[in-house]
């Protein structure tokens, strides 16, 4: 659905994105992850036809975003980071206007607007002025306008930013629902979001893609150590840590508030030895589980590595 090849963009002398290449297939929810200024918004703006690339090309549903801009745009639903809305309109008027702008003719449009508002849970506030809505509601309205015209591709720039946890959950749920039948490109710098929603992650930094894979695989690829988490009921983490340090297969132990993190040795599985120790001490074993490298870690690793690599250059 989305095909990007060698996309480059200069702002004056400054290169914002450098030879980006990636793709997103139909039905995929792809996450665009990166720090502020990495080039996410720029990429999205190019994809949505807001501005042309300096070099390279991109296609949406087979239409070149620059050469066949109007066809491409017609197939995209876009929610920019700022969620720009016409404050003086009512919710219904706004979504209706956006629908019309995106090419929906008069027949059936009104029903569709109702439908979409219902979908995002704003139907009861259809006649409220946008000015009077909370941020979460505005986000929902923004999402509504992005999907009202049943686009093949959804491009969402930081859709959950600034929302409270409940709202975040709602929006994510919506995105999941909506994304079932569409291709979604979702950018964020919130790691948890990406891991929950996306089937694939693109990590972008300084205008370049530094990693691309599913969350699990990514985590695995980057992780060169295995970690476990141990939670003991009747002993403090400190005590536990002290006890299992040096046990076979345990290379490092980190006591934390909740429990103990065990960095395993690459060759030996520490679990048998640890279990034995627990039994020996007659501790209550509440939890012993495998811990994946968090995305944060991956992210930091990747981005720091990159930074280091860059400096060395």
């Amino acid at each position, binding site marked *: 659905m989305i095909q990007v090849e060698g996309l480059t963009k200069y702002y004056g002398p400054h290169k914002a994105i450098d030879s980006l290449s990636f793709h997103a297939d139909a039905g995929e929810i792809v996450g665009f992850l990166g720090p502020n200024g990495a080039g996410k918004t720029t990429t999205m*703006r190019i994809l*949505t*036809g*807001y*501005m*042309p690339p300096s070099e390279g090309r991109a296609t949406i549903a087979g239409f070149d975003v620059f050469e066949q801009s*109007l*066809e491409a*745009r*017609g197939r*995209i639903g*876009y929610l*920019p980071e*700022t969620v*720009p*809305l*016409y*404050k*003086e*309109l009512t919710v219904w*008027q706004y979504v209706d*206007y*956006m629908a*019309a*702008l*995106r*090419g929906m*003719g008069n027949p059936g449009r009104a029903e569709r607007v109702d439908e979409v508002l219902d979908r995002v849970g704003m139907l009861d506030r259809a006649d409220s002025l946008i000015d009077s809505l909370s941020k979460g509601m505005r986000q929902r309205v923004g999402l509504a*306008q992005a999907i009202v015209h049943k686009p093949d591709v959804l491009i969402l720039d930081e859709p959950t930013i600034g929302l409270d946890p409940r709202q975040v959950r709602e929006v994510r749920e919506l995105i999941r629902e909506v994304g079932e039948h569409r291709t979604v490109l979702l950018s964020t710098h919130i790691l948890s979001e990406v891991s929950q929603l996306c089937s694939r992650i693109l990590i972008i930094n300084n205008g370049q893609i530094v990693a691309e894979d599913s969350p699990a695989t990514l985590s695995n690829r980057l992780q060169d150590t295995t970690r476990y988490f141990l939670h003991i009921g009747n002993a403090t983490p400190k005590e536990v840590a002290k006890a299992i340090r040096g046990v076979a297969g345990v290379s490092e132990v980190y006591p934390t508030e909740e429990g103990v993190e065990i960095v395993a040795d690459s060759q030996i599985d520490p679990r048998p030895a640890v279990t034995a120790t627990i039994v020996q001490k007659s501790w209550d074993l509440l939890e012993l589980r495998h811990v994946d490298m968090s995305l944060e870690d991956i992210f930091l690793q990747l981005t720091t590595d990159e930074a280091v690599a860059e400096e060395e250059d």
Partner: protein
Amino acid sequence: MPNIGRSFHNLWTVFKHEFSVYFISPIIYWIGAGWLCLAGVFYSNSLGFYNQGTYEVSMSSLFSPMAFLTIFIAPALTMRLLAEEVHAGTHELLFTAPVRDWEVVVGKWLASWAVMSSFILVTFLHAGLLIWRGSPNIAVMITGYIGLWLVCGATLAIGVFASSLSQYQLVSFMISMGTLVLLWVAGAVSSLISNSLLSEAINQLTITNHYHNTMLNLGLVDPIDVAYFVGVMALFLFLATQILGTRRWRA
């Protein structure tokens, strides 16, 4: 051809939206009320003379100040049109929609023209009174209206262009008002210039020379005047479209 159909759809969409937005804001009612009040003043003043039989009955004494007022009203009506989109950020949605730049420009311009036309429409009441109680020259009245309508269209096009230049409404206002003042009074300067070609060119640039001499007072529609107004509209709307286009790759 589907393209034309789509253009119409887009134009209509933008127009309808913009037109209704005008009437949501109370500002328009103030401007309209102000315009009508001034119109009332000029009209009543002349009416006194008509009643006494000192002057012939005509709407021209109203049209002339109305046309002059467009120097202020057109910028006021248009300053928001494009500047606000950028300022509020909605341009990101507008320019990523499958709508051509010119459709946006023309649609908005048409909305402002429709608003101004509705102001003008109210003056039909004023005209109606004159027709009922007197025998004004209908032809002059008609051409006066046509001309005023064209002046509005042209001044609004200049306003739309000014609005495309900046995200700050005040800047747009100043630019368009400045341009309009220039075009209004350029003719006065022409008498100082000895080069007849240049002075004639300046004369032809002046708005008043294309309205007051023929349509306003004489009941004539001179193709050159129509060409002037249409030309101004076309040129400035084109330029506005170009400026919008530059936003994309300047952003």
